[in-house]
């Protein structure tokens, strides 16, 4: 196909051609960035937690007034909850992944250090790891006799030194001591140190206020909670039993003490869903805008293409009369669209890169991966070709006899 005649024709329709180019460029720039944003959100929603999410349910119970014997009440609650058919394990814990409510502490590797090394979350609760289903990859779990009462430890500083060990995540160990085994190494919380006795594969923090990079910075301590200082019961059961177990757990807890508030009866899957709901909503919205943009652009090309064809009916007729085949005419319009799309895409890529730089600066977004450019180009070429096909076929159908008619 000869490109020169097309170019000379386009030169006579500068503004219209420019508008098509502009529209394709803007669409290309926005869609590239929007798709990138969507992929970021989807990736975030895939974040691993390190726990047996599909088998866990949570229920919160709050006593009213000062508990006279919180320890005894806790043991009664736990015993009653274990009686529920299908319950494999129960724990009363201070925090649960994806609930956005967390206990955190700064830690140091050296007590003389002026600034803390980092901030990590603290999980407390008897049987926490086995209930959550976090996988131990090094060292050991806590022995039953290692657990201390959180209530007493909090009040008595001498007891704080008696905490026998801490279990951390592999990611936290790797961050604190890169390339080394974390086992046996001390962590300082305030002035007291505690040694790492175990490492779990993963255990996500309940809230990601410090950024997604710190998601796996978690520590587990052998401390036992009671109803006075913790409210979250976590039950592990088979996935199909979760709803039934939740209902039974609520009834059990209410029966044990009618004067308390029972709330947030949820499966961990639901809790996770709520945690990422903003990301899901944003991804959906961006996807909607992308589709709308592509449709508007495609329809714009169809509209302009139709006009061009109508305007050049005579010219097409003359060409046909002079021996151009239908295929020639079809190709002419396809090539014309391809040329405009190519210029638009080239411009759009530069614009996309610019928008990405702006987003990187203001919204802490990573750089647009290079493969977005060729993929974006191919998609826009295809859309352009699909959009112009109708008008081009109509052009090809113009009979040579049109040339002889004066319109």
């Amino acid at each position, binding site marked *: 196909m000869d490109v020169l005649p097309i170019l000379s024709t386009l030169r006579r329709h500068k503004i219209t051609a420019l508008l098509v180019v502009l529209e394709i460029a803007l669409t290309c720039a926005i869609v590239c960035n929007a798709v990138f944003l969507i992929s970021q959100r989807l990736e975030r929603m895939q974040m691993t937690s390190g726990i047996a999410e599909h088998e866990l349910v949570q229920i919160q119970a709050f006593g*009213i*007034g*000062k508990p006279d014997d919180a320890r005894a009440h806790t043991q009664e609650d736990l015993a009653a909850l274990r009686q529920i058919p299908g319950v494999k394990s129960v724990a009363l814990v201070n925090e649960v992944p994806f609930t956005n409510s967390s206990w955190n502490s700064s830690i140091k590797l050296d007590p003389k250090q002026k600034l803390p090394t980092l901030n990590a979350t603290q999980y407390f609760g008897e049987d926490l790891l086995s209930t959550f289903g976090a996988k131990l990859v090094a060292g050991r779990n806590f022995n039953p006799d290692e657990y201390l009462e959180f209530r007493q430890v909090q009040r008595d500083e001498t007891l704080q030194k008696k905490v026998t060990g801490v279990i951390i995540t592999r990611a936290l160990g790797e961050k604190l001591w890169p390339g080394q085994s974390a086992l046996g190494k001390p962590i300082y919380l305030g002035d007291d140190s505690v040694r790492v006795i175990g490492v779990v594969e993963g255990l996500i923090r309940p809230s990601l206020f410090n950024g997604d990079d710190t998601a796996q910075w978690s520590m587990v301590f052998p401390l036992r909670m009671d109803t006075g200082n913790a409210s979250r019961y976590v039950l592990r059961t088979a996935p199909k039993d979760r709803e039934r177990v939740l209902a039974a757990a609520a009834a059990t807890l209410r029966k044990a003490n009618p*004067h308390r508030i029972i709330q947030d009866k949820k499966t961990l899957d639901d809790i996770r869903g709520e945690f990422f709901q*903003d990301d899901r909503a944003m991804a959906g919205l961006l996807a909607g805008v992308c589709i709308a943009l592509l449709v508007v652009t495609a329809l714009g090309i169809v509209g302009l293409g*139709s006009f061009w064809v109508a305007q050049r009916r005579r010219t097409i007729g003359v060409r046909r009369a002079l021996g151009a085949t239908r295929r020639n005419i079809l190709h002419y319009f396809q090539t014309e669209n391809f040329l405009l799309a190519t210029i638009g895409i080239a411009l759009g890529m530069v614009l996309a890169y610019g928008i990405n730089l702006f987003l990187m600066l*203001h919204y802490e977004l990573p750089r647009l991966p290079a493969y977005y450019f060729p993929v974006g180009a191919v998609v826009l070429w295809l859309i352009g070709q699909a959009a112009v096909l109708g008008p081009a076929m109509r052009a090809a159908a113009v009979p040579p006899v049109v040339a002889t008619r004066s319109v």
Partner: protein
Amino acid sequence: MFGYYLQLAWRSLGRNRVLTTLMVLALALGIGACITTLTVLRLLSGDPLPGRSAQLYYPQVDPYPKDGYVPGQSKPQENLTWVDANNLFEAHRAPRQALVALGSAKIQPHDAGGRPFFGDAVMATAEFLPMVGAPFRYGSAWSADDDTAGARVVVIADFLNQKLFGGANSVGRTVRLNGNDFRVVGVLGHFSPQPRFYAINIGRSYGDGDGVFLPLRAARATEMAPTNISCWAAGDIEHLETAPCMWLGLWVELPDAAAVANYQRFLDGYVREQVAQGRFHRTDTALPDLMQWLRNEQVVPDDARLQAGLAFGFLLICVTNTIGLLLAKCLRRSREIGVRRALGATRGAIFGQFMVEAAIVGLAGGLLGLVFAEAGLWGIRHQPAEYASLARLDLSMFAFTFVVALASALVAGLLPAWRACVVAPAPQLKSS
């Protein structure tokens, strides 16, 4: 003349129904998206206390240790410790001032069958409610004497009064909070500043508002814990009054610039004094007014801003699209224009004719855009965000929609109309 243009435009638009629909639809989509996201942005960056916010200031200091301190590179803390909050409060350097902390109250209904439930609580000093202009349906706020005496009195919100007392005047009756009886001294009318500026740093920024308002000392005496506690060293959070923890906010009312300058001087002096005593190590202070405080806390989420940017990009593409289509149409009508010009129509008349056509497209786009915006806002209301239920199109946005629609259509119409009016009549007539 205008009527004639209308008629011409109408006929021209009717001649290409598909194309006209396309233009209107594209413009409407762009406008709908813009209005939806703008409404959300406006809602999020709105003034919670119109008329009062300019006089409310939020003093901030920094009690953190010296470690890691680089002067000029750190910001004062969001909250105050009990000690600093009380020192600043007791100095009475503002006409009105109030300490405030957020908590939650376990509320026990009096009837036997009623299950206890949680209510959002505000622990504050006496002037808080009058200062922020909370309307009272019954009774009034508690007094400064109630503050110091630790009186167990409470002001409840209208929706809680409805729930507990069926909406009757409940002043003098008691409400059981966290296992203690509090005497109702006031019932609020509708009061829910959006965002809830005194609660934004704990993420309860939007929604119905708080259920109970009670004197700070009385609340603390019944062990109500603040929702937001931030400590810089180990401490017993059950004894917050002595712990190295920040959990209180102080709002001061400063009527004019002189008062603000005075208060800033007082605050700086206070910090220097504390540094001299060895309690403080950092001298940064801040005294933002309410709106500045909201901006500092970045109340408007990045997502909302991003969505608005995206919507404007979208509108830009839609306008480009409309320009292209209008232009193509206008070029096809060169002959018609030639005939009209030859018959005596001025360039201005041709320009006017095409602008009227563009304006009709714009108005139709605006009308449909309004429908899209309503649909978009309906979608927002069904989103999980906590501000979702507040997303409604108000009158000014309604008007704005039409301004945006008309403006975009006229901008889109400018180029085609100009091209149309410069068409030289003779060649057009010759070619036929």
